[in-house]
C-alpha cells in the first residue's frame, strides 16, 4: 500500500507508517535495521530496487533521501518535504519511505531522517553515487554505524579510493570491496590447499574498476609482496596470478561467469564466480555491521605507499612507449603493458585519470 504526503514533516510520516501497517493488518514487524539511501531522482529507482531485494534477507526500514535543491533562486528558497510511504508488498519485507527534499531542506536531511530511524536498531547509510568526501563527517553519515560508498561510480575511481583511505573511520565500507569477496575467498581457499610462499602477484581487470586495485592492495598487505596491476578489457576482474616457487596459482575469469583455477601439479578446475547484482552486494554488506578492519588495512595500505613512490613511477610509465595495445594474459611475467606495483598505480592515478580518461587499454596505468 502507498500513501502520498505532500508538504509534510517527520511526525506525520511516522503516523502514516503506523496507519499503513494497521491497514494491511501487520503489527510492528521485526525489522532489523534502518537503511538510508542518499540518492537523486535518476538513480533512486535502481537503488530502491536493489535495497528492496536485499530486504528479503534483512527486513529493514528503507529511507530514500532524494534531494531536489531546485534550479531557480525561487525554488531554492522554498523548503518542502514530500513523502511517499510504501508498506507491504510494495516494499519488500519492510517499509519504504521516499523523502523528497526541496529547496533549503536538501542540505538539512538529517533533521528529517533522525525522527524516522527505528528505535535501538542499527543505521546504515548508502550512497549509490556522489558519496561525500568524508562519509563519517557527513550529517547523515554521522547517524550511521555503517556507511557504504561505491568507488566505481566516481569520476576517478582510484583517486576516490585514496580519498576513502584518508578519511576512513570505522564503519566505512565500499561496494568495490564487497564485489571481490568471492575472489578473495577463492584465493584464500587456493592457499589453504597449497602451503607455499607467494613471491609476487598480478591482478588483471578492466580499467575504471577500483575492485582490481582493492584486490591488489589486499594481496599486497596480506602477503607483503609486490603486486602488479594490468589493464584488460574485462568484464570486471579477469585474472589473478599468485607467483610461487613451484609455479603460478591462477584464477582466470574471462566471461564474468565461470572461472578457471589452475595450480601447479593439479588439474584445472572450474569455479562459478558470477559478477553479482547490487542487491546481493547490499545484502552482504548488511550481514555484518561491525567495522571491517581488513578493508581498512587494505585501502590504507596503498595510501601510505602512494606518497612514497608516487612521482618515481610516473616516469617509468612515460618512458615506456611501446607496450602492446592489449594486455598479454598469456605471458605472466611480461609486464609489457604498464604493469606496476599497486601503490604506484594508485599513486599515479589522480593525475593520470585527468590526462587520459577515455583510453582504458592505454599504457597510462592511471585509469586501472
Amino acid at each position, binding site marked *: 500500500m502507498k500513501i502520498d504526503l505532500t508538504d509534510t514533516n517527520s511526525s506525520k510520516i511516522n503516523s502514516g507508517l503506523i496507519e499503513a501497517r494497521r491497514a494491511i493488518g501487520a503489527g510492528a514487524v521485526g525489522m532489523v535495521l534502518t537503511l538510508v539511501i542518499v540518492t537523486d531522482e535518476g538513480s533512486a529507482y535502481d537503488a530502491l530496487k536493489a535495497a528492496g531485494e536485499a530486504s*528479503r534477507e534483512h527486513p529493514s526500514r528503507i529511507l530514500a533521501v532524494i534531494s531536489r535543491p531546485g534550479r531557480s533562486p525561487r525554488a531554492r528558497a522554498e523548503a518542502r518535504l514530500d513523502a511517499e510511504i510504501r508498506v507491504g508488498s510494495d516494499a519488500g519485507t519492510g517499509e519504504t519511505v521516499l523523502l523528497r527534499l526541496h529547496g533549503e531542506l536538501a542540505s538539512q536531511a538529517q533533521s528529517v531522517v533522525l525522527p524516522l530511524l527505528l528505535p535501538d536498531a542499527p543505521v546504515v547509510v548508502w550512497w549509490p553515487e556522489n558519496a561525500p568526501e568524508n562519509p563519517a563527517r557527513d550529517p547523515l553519515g554521522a547517524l550511521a554505524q555503517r556507511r557504504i560508498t561505491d568507488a566505481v561510480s566516481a569520476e576517478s575511481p582510484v583517486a576516490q579510493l585514496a580519498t576513502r583511505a584518508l578519511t576512513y573511520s570505522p564503519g566505512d565500507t565500499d561496494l568495490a570491496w564487497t564485489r571481490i569477496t568471492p575472489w*578473495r*575467498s577463492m584465493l584464500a581457499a587456493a592457499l589453504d*590447499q597449497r602451503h607455499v610462499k607467494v613471491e609476487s602477484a598480478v591482478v588483471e581487470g578492466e580499467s575504471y574498476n577500483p575492485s582490481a586495485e582493492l584486490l591488489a592492495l589486499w594481496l599486497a598487505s596480506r602477503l607483503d609482496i609486490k603486486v602488479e596491476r594490468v589493464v584488460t578489457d574485462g568484464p570486471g576482474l579477469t585474472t589473478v596470478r599468485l607467483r610461487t616457487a613451484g609455479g603460478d596459482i591462477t584464477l582466470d575469469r574471462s566471461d564474468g561467469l565461470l572461472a578457471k583455477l589452475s595450480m601447479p601439479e593439479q*588439474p584445472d*578446475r*572450474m569455479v*562459478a564466480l558470477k559478477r553479482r547484482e547490487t542487491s546481493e552486494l547490499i545484502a552482504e554488506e548488511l550481514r555484518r555491521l561491525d567495522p571491517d*578492519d581488513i578493508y581498512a588495512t587494505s585501502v590504507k595500505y596503498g595510501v601510505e605507499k602512494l606518497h612514497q613512490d608516487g612521482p618515481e613511477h610516473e616516469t617509468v610509465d612515460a618512458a615506456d612507449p611501446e607496450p602492446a595495445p592489449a594486455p598479454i594474459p598469456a605471458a605472466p611475467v611480461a609486464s609489457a603493458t604498464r604493469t606496476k606495483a599497486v601503490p604506484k598505480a594508485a599513486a599515479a592515478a589522480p593525475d593520470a585519470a585527468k590526462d587520459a580518461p577515455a583510453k582504458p587499454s592505454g599504457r597510462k596505468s592511471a585509469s586501472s
Partner: protein
Amino acid sequence: MSEEAQSVLEEETGVVNAWLNPLRDPADRRLPRIAGPSGLVIFGVTGDLSRKKLMPAVYDLANRGLLPPGFSLIGFARRDWEDEDFAQVVHDSVKEHARTPFREEVWQQLAKGMRFVQGEFVDNDAFEKLRETIEELDKAQGTGGNFAFYLSVPPKFFPQVVEQLKAHGLADPPKGSWRRAVIEKPFGHDLASATELNRVVHSVFPRDEVFRIDHYLGKETVQNILALRFANAMFEPIWNRSYVDHVQITMAEDIGIGGRAGYYDGIGSARDVIQNHLLQLMALTAIEEPASFHPKALVAEKLKVLSAVKIPKDLGLHTVRGQYTHGWQGGEEVLGYLEEEGIDPKSTTDTYAAVKLEINNRRWAGVPFYLRTGKRLGRRVTEIAVVFQRAPYLPFDSSATEELGQNALVIRVQPDEGVTMRFGSKVPGTSMEVRDVSMDFAYGESFTESSPEAYERLILDVLLGDANLFPRHQEVEESWKILDPIEEYWDKHGKPAPYESGTWGPAEADEMLARDGRSWRRP
C-alpha cells in the same frame, strides 16, 4: 601472520610450524568457511533422501560458493546408469528441490565432478570400480584423496558397506588426507544393537571420522537454543527449578507412515523420534554452559545431562503410547495405522509416544520434562515449551486473573521458526483484567527469508570435519539407556491406546499430565 596467531595455531594443532594461511584472518568475516578439496560418495543415491535433500543441498552449497573448486560427487546404486544419466537425475532434483535459484555456471562447475558407480553392496567389482573412480577424480579434479562416504541406505546394510569399504582400502586415507563415514538414523533399535553398530563402524573408521546425522541439530532454531540461553542475560537466571514448572517438548507430524511400513512397523515413534531428536532437544534445553563450543566440551555437557536422566518408577502411569485410527485429518479421510498397507493388523507398534522424564541435578531436580511425538496429529509442529511457575502471589481479585495462564517461553523449531513468550497483560478498559498475550520473534521476519537447509550445514560440516552438530556414539548409547526400559515395559504391558487421526493424541496422554495437575499445550 602474527606470531601470536602462529603460537595459538601450534597449540591447537600440536604441529610446530603449522601452515597459517596469510590470506585468512579471523577478523575477515566476509570470507566463508570453504571446505578443502574433497568429494562425497553417496550410497543409495537413488533414494528419496538423496534426491530431495542431499543433492539439492550440495548444489545450494556450491551456489553459495562454499564448496571447493573441483568438488566431486559420486553416486553408488544398483541402477544401470551412465555418468550422464546420473548427472541428469541430479540436475532434475536440483531444479525441483534446491533452495537457491538454478544457475548454469554453478551447474557446470558441479557437473564436471559427477560420477556414477553401478553395483550391489556385495559386488566386489563395483567397489573396485569405486576405488578407481576416486583415484581418477583425485587426478582429474584434484580432490586430494579426501572423501566422505554418505550411507543413505537402510541400517541393515551399514555393516556390509563399511566392511566393503575396508576390504577395498577405501577407508584408509592416503597420507595427509581423510576418509569419513556419514550415517543416518536409526542408530540401532536398542542399546545392544547400537553398541554393535558403533563397534562395526569404528572398526573401520576412527571415532572422530564418523558423523551421525541428526538433521534436527542442523536446524538454525536448534542451534539458536544455545545462543538464546548462553548469549543473553535475561533467560539463564530463571532457567532452573526455582522458576520453571515443567518443560514440554513436542514433535508432531500430520502425515501417517506413508510408504515406510517396512521400516516403521516394529520400530515405532519412540525409537524413531524420542531416542534421537527429542532427547537431543531436551539435552540442549537442559545443559549447563559448556566451557567452549569445542565439540568435546559440548558433548561432555550433553552426556552429563543424558546420564542424569531418571525415568519414572511407575512406567504405566507416566508413559503413554498410542496408535492412530481411521479418521479425518485436515479435511481428508485417512486410514488407521492397522489398515495401512503392509502393516500387520495385530501390530502393537506405537505411532504416538509420550514420556515423563526427570533430570537429577541441582538445576532440574523435580522439574518434569514431558516428551511427546506422534503421527497423524493435528498439524506438523516441533517446539520446546518451557512453562514457568505461577507468580507466588497475585494482588488482584481472583476474577481479574481468571484468564491468566502460566508464563511460557516457546522455541518453535519448525515450521515458522522463532521464539514466543507468553505472559499476562492488562486488557484495555476500566476494570483490571489480566489475560495472556504472546510476544513473537520470527526468524522469517528478523533474518533471511530462507535459512540454509539443515543438510547444507551438516554436509559442509562433514567436509570441514567439524563435529559439533553431530551426536557422538556415547550420546546414542546414553539415549538408548533411557529408552530401553520404557520399550521393555511396553512390550510386556498392554497395547497402544487408539487415537483418532487428526487429534492431539490419545486421552491417556491427557490423563497422564492431569495426574500431575498439568495439561498439554496445544502447539
